[in-house]
């Protein structure tokens, strides 16, 4: 067994050395694993790829990404960001806080950490660096703010958790709001504290206040239709009018109407460009997801996660020990496996134990997503790090240095979410 594992690690190392994409490294790892540990039957890799993509619940993912791409291409994202900038302008470090708030606004549309990072980052990275904020801080804030995309509903990992554990997706979406507010608060306070020397754009004169109010009301008016998209989408889900997938389809339709008919700042021909951009994003993300799911199906078949959980059970006496152990496990898993696969594998295995210690399934789901969300920021596989590296053309170490303080903040937020279930459950029936 040890020889096979060493061979597998060597194979992945050689492939990375030979400049192979993640999908090839993961696919080769899946093929190797199936050949060695599954009676030499490589064809099951393709069967599992088929199982991975042939799921209705996944429909929400391309549609939310398409909706977010339309809104990023048009002016919805820009209008939301403008509103956030105007609201935070008088505060010290306002632009940094605006970045966090913009991520929160956009998270309510996108459902994805990466899309939130890209949509807000495309505007705010340049604005932050041009206004003297350090590259490390800008990238760290955007990467961490991007994680709000999977905590503020609609969240794709929350949908997966709901499906796997038979937990109400509507409850999960409601439960995400409190922890998201905690995270926004912590990130905003940090942004202000570290950039306090960048004084806000205000004075004590009434004229200054009136001007600021005018700017805010103008930005609010410009953003009113942009804000209507998440309101209709989330309102529809909360009222039980739409499922998450249907809400994603509605989001696409609404985004198109707002951008093409209401704002009229997007040409019909740009819809094709946006569609191709989405196809490109899906084409780079879905195969990674497929091979990750394929590998995880094999791991599940070989009962590797159950063995880990069984080991945990022998060492755990009470709820707090379980919560600490589960959080450590999820943090480690989140560092090496993508959040979708991690949720698919861990949620049905850990939830029964969590339930036996009296932990609410909805609360546990939020703990899991916040925890695994930190994996977006942890080297070497953190997806937001890789995306930020590509999108902002910075080297890996600059990105890593940038996110380090934000990882600590996210861990603090996680601790608060774990210790105070009321924050998660106050809106849940």
């Amino acid at each position, binding site marked *: 067994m040890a020889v096979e594992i060493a061979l597998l690690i060597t194979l992945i190392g050689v492939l990375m050395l030979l400049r192979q994409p993640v999908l090839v490294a993961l696919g080769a790892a899946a093929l190797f694993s199936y050949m060695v540990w599954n009676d030499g039957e490589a064809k099951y890799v393709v*069967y599992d790829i088929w199982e991975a993509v*042939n799921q209705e619940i996944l*429909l929400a993912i391309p*549609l939310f990404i398409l909706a977010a791409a339309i809104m990023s291409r048009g002016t919805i994202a820009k209008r939301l960001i403008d509103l956030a900038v105007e609201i935070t302008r008088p505060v010290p470090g306002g632009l940094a806080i605006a970045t966090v708030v913009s991520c929160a606004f956009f998270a309510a549309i996108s459902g994805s950490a990466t899309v939130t990072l890209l949509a807000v980052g495309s505007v705010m990275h340049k604005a932050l660096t041009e206004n003297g904020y350090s590259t490390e801080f800008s990238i760290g804030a955007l990467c961490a703010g991007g994680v709000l995309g999977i905590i503020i509903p609609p969240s794709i990992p929350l949908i997966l958790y709901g499906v796997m554990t038979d937990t109400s997706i509507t409850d999960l979406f409601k439960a995400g709001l409190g922890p998201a507010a905690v995270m926004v608060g912590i990130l905003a306070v940090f942004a202000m504290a570290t950039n306090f020397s960048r004084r806000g754009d205000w004075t004590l004169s009434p004229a200054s206040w009136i001007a600021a109010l005018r700017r805010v009301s103008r930005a609010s008016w410009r953003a009113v239709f942009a804000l209507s998209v998440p309101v209709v989408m989330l309102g529809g889900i909360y009222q039980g009018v739409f499922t998450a997938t249907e809400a994603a389809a509605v989001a696409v339709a609404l985004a198109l109407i707002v951008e093409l008919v209401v704002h009229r700042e997007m040409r019909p021909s740009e819809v094709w460009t946006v569609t191709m951009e989405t*196809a490109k994003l899906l*084409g780079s993300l*879905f195969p990674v997801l497929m091979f990750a799911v394929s590998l995880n199906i094999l791991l599940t078949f070989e009962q590797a996660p159950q063995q880990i959980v069984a080991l945990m059970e022998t060492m755990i006496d009470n709820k707090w020990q379980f919560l600490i152990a589960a959080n450590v496990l999820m943090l480690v898993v989140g560092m090496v496996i993508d959040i979708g696969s991690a949720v698919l594998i861990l949620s049905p295995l850990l939830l029964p134990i969590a339930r036996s210690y009296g932990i609410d399934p909805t609360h546990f789901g939020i703990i899991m997503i916040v925890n695994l969300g930190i994996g977006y920021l942890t080297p070497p596989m953190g997806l937001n790090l890789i995306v930020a*590296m590509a999108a902002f053309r910075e080297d890996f170490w600059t990105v890593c240095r940038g996110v380090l303080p934000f990882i600590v903040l996210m861990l603090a937020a996680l601790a608060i979410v774990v210790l105070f279930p009321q924050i998660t459950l106050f809106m849940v029936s």
Partner: protein
Amino acid sequence: MNVGATILSALKRFERMACGVAFLVMAAPLMADVARRLIVGSGILGAPQVAVVGMIAVAMFGIGVAADEGAHLRPRFLDGVFPKRWKPTIETIAHALTALFFAGLALIAFAVVDETRRLEDVNSVLRWPLWPVQAIIFLAFLLNAVRYAIYAVSPELRPIEEADRVPEALEEARA
């Protein structure tokens, strides 16, 4: 235009068109389903299953769209291990290896599609045979094997990786 460029251009057109159509196949039934349910009170039977077919096509043909734009995620922290002058050789090996990977997967996928066709597996709701949809997976892998084989033998046709585009453009401008 040489043969490789002609083939790549045809692949690009086909994959983009297929993705565009697939997006329609994915989004339109779902929107119609929601609209009908809001208006009439009942949705369209099988609409989500049709949408899933569209999603599979987008995901699979999207691999080619991403490859064409140099957009596949790739860890770059080991790029500095080999001397810079080896870069062209390493890249040729890399593309040949990726072509082999996709060719291998295409072979396996072909066997799976053939097995599904012989077993006459059908979609449980629509009662459609599954193998034509699974054939999309085979086709996507095959097209990417061809694409990367061309990249391996024709360095001038390789896409610039997304992460390299701005720095290279800046270097050119400075030069």
